[in-house]
């Protein structure tokens, strides 16, 4: 109970600081450019902190440690991919994209290829990716609040949605930049402090609650444990065992002592299981059941190899297509600053990802019961109080909870701003009022989906939106920036084929998860196939329709690539957005000193 108060207190503090910083930022934000691009006057280091703060989502903060706990070393490809994606973004996209002066991806597509049809397709996929990314954030918020306070899971998602929407309504991009820069450092502290303390405790010896591993490498419970499932899970048993179960097992009723031989068991929702001390740990399906497989890379055979490469394709190439990441780059003053910002982000991300990995490894020793329920995303939240059942553990647990909350808030803010930006300019007329309506609409749709869709690991769901981004916007951006031959018909064909394949395989995955998991892993990890197919389609159709090549392609590429001092860069959106008065104010602004950069 005391832990709950600590955690709840810190979560409230994070929410309050978010509001406060948002308020401070929003007092100065009153023009449309303020709202949408924070007046493009943010220094590179702060912008990098804001980008990292926005990027480190629930998938990074909770999901990475959870997957390391469950899948072992092969899960390390998630943090690697999340970081290396920025390298690809920096090398191929950052500076030219910033110089294109477009605010959203549809803006870029239209400026490059001059087609409003293409623009509509881009809008559709931006909304798809944004919402697909938003759903796991809100669901994880529910899980966090549920884990630390026992409040119902839907409440966490609703709370996060309300805070984000109110904050974005208040000040748009300008307000959330400061909020997100703060939240990066908040998150880094929230994950680094517990890691240092717990790692020291861990090194000091297998103290209280360390789990036993026998000579065969089989996981065993170190004490009597009772586990209650929150949803239906399929678990694998390698070593026969006896346990007590109350609820649904394999479709039938169970009430009392049962014997489980080797095999898989389906445990229904709300079933309570009691394990004896020293009993082997049943592990959720598809995860390694003993420590030898957990420790060694690539033990999953060819299928595992395929999954790893698919993940590499999705994350390495998907980052550049994420709308909430791209929109941040438009707040840089020029192309060179965009490149420097991306470099700084690489450093900040590398710094962060060491910690969840360490926490995941330690939690394997202390939290085996999470392997039964499959709720491994909660590992980071539960580890401090499990390892240190005293005030220290409570304080650390509270810090972690607050950090997780900051992760949901910042990522969701960024996503809501970018999706609302696209909705307000492409579907609505594009004034500040429309942006506000779009914000409310985006928040409502996302929370609705988060409540309806079944919950799975945050990192897996997020990997799906990376796959979608890698199969749609990555080819569009890379070919659009570096290849003269791209045509709008080729671009549309690539988007439709790549995006269609990913969405189709996602549908197959969801259907198969309801009807007995028959789909092979090609469908849950499609990027290895869909990304090359999207690239090839785009190139082939562009070659076939080479007459549609825009006449001014040389001029456009000149704008993308000419160094900043030559002054070819044009900020397109400032003129596109806004009412007549705002435009007048902008024009007026050119006749006096530029406004003080907001710092």
């Amino acid at each position, binding site marked *: 109970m005391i832990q709950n108060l600590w955690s709840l207190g810190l979560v409230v503090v994070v929410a309050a600081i978010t509001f406060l910083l948002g308020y401070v930022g929003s007092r100065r934000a009153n023009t449309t450019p303020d709202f949408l691009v924070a007046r493009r006057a943010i220094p590179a280091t702060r912008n990098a902190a804001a980008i990292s703060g926005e990027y480190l989502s629930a998938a990074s903060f909770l999901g990475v440690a959870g997957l390391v706990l469950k899948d072992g070393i092969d899960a*390390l490809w998630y943090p690697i991919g999340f*970081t290396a994606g920025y390298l690809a973004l920096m090398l*191929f996209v950052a500076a030219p994209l910033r110089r294109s002066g477009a605010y959203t991806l549809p803006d870029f597509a239209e400026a490059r290829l001059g087609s409003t049809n293409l623009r509509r397709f881009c809008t559709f996929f931006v909304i798809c990716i944004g919402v697909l990314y938003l759903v796991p954030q809100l669901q994880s918020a529910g899980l966090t609040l549920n884990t630390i306070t026992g409040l119902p899971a839907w409440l966490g998602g609703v709370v996060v949605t309300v805070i984000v929407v109110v904050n974005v309504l208040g000040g748009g991009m300008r307000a959330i930049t400061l909020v997100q820069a703060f939240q990066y450092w908040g998150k880094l502290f929230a994950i680094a402090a517990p890691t240092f303390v717990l790692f020291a405790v861990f090194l000091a010896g297998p103290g209280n609650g360390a789990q036993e591993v026998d000579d065969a490498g089989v996981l065993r419970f170190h004490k009597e444990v009772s586990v209650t499932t929150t949803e239906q899970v399929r678990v694998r048993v390698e070593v026969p065992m006896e346990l007590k179960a109350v609820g649904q097992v394999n479709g039938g009723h169970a009430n009392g002592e049962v014997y489980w031989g080797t095999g898989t068991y389906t445990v229904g929702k709300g079933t309570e299981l009691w394990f004896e001390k020293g009993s082997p740990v049943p592990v959720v399906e598809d995860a390694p059941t003993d420590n030898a497989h957990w420790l060694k890379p690539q033990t999953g055979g060819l299928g595992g190899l395929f999954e790893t490469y698919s993940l590499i394709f999705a994350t390495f190439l998907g980052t550049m297509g994420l709308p909430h990441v791209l929109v941040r780059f438009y707040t840089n003053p020029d192309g060179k600053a965009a490149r420097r910002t991306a470099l700084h982000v690489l450093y900040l991300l590398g710094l962060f990802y060491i910690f969840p*990995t360490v926490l995941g490894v330690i939690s394997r020793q202390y939290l085996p019961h999470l392997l039964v329920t499959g709720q491994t995303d909660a590992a980071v939240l539960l580890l401090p109080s499990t390892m240190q059942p005293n005030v220290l553990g409570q304080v650390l647990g509270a810090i972690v909870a607050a950090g997780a909350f900051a992760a949901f808030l910042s990522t969701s803010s960024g996503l809501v701003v970018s999706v609302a930006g696209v909705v307000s300019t492409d579907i609505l007329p594009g004034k500040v009022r429309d942006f506000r309506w779009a914000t409310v609409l985006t928040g409502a749709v996302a929370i609705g989906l988060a409540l309806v869709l079944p919950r799975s690991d945050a990192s897996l769901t997020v990997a799906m939106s990376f796959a979608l981004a890698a199969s749609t916007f990555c080819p569009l951006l890379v070919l659009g920036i570096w290849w003269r031959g791209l045509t709008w018909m080729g671009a549309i064909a690539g988007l439709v084929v790549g995006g269609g394949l990913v969405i189709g395989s996602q549908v197959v995955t969801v259907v198969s998860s309801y009807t007995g998991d028959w789909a092979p892993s090609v469908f849950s990890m499609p990027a290895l196939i869909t990304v090359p197919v999207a690239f090839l389609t785009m190139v082939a159709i562009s070659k076939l329709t080479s007459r549609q090549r825009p006449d001014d392609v040389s001029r456009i590429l000149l704008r993308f690539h000419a160094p*900043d001092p030559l002054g070819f860069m044009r900020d397109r959106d*400032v003129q*596109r957005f806004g009412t007549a008065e705002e435009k007048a104010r902008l024009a007026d602004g050119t006749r006096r000193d530029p406004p003080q950069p907001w710092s």
Partner: protein
Amino acid sequence: MSKHSGPPGQPDQPQPGERDAWLSVAARKNRRRRVVLADPRGRGRVLRTIIELEEQTSVGEKLIRDLIRQQLRAAFLLGGGTLTLLALLPLVFYLVPALGDVELAGVRLPWLLLGVLPFPLCYGAGYAYRRLAESHEHDFVSSVDR
């Protein structure tokens, strides 16, 4: 900040009309102008080359094509190299399972290779690219600014 305003029509930039064909009429009128008051380099001469670039004379076209090729080559070398190096790891682990048992300072080698190494590697590649790209751009500006 070097962005100050000046009276319209200052010959520091090409005429707005040609370059901003994609803007609306109102936007073209209100466009913000960048005027550099004290620049050591002769802006007049730069202007001529900029117009050359703008109008896609064969010289301008060649200049910008070369720059794009240079930047793309640097990006491919550094990015491709780093990403290929990382992407080879799973295959190596798959083909040589014995690597999983090698220990280095008490930690298994694959954990070091995957948990620590990629982050400085990515930063290093990014840093090298920033240096290269900026020097390419610097060279380009000085070749324009003859």
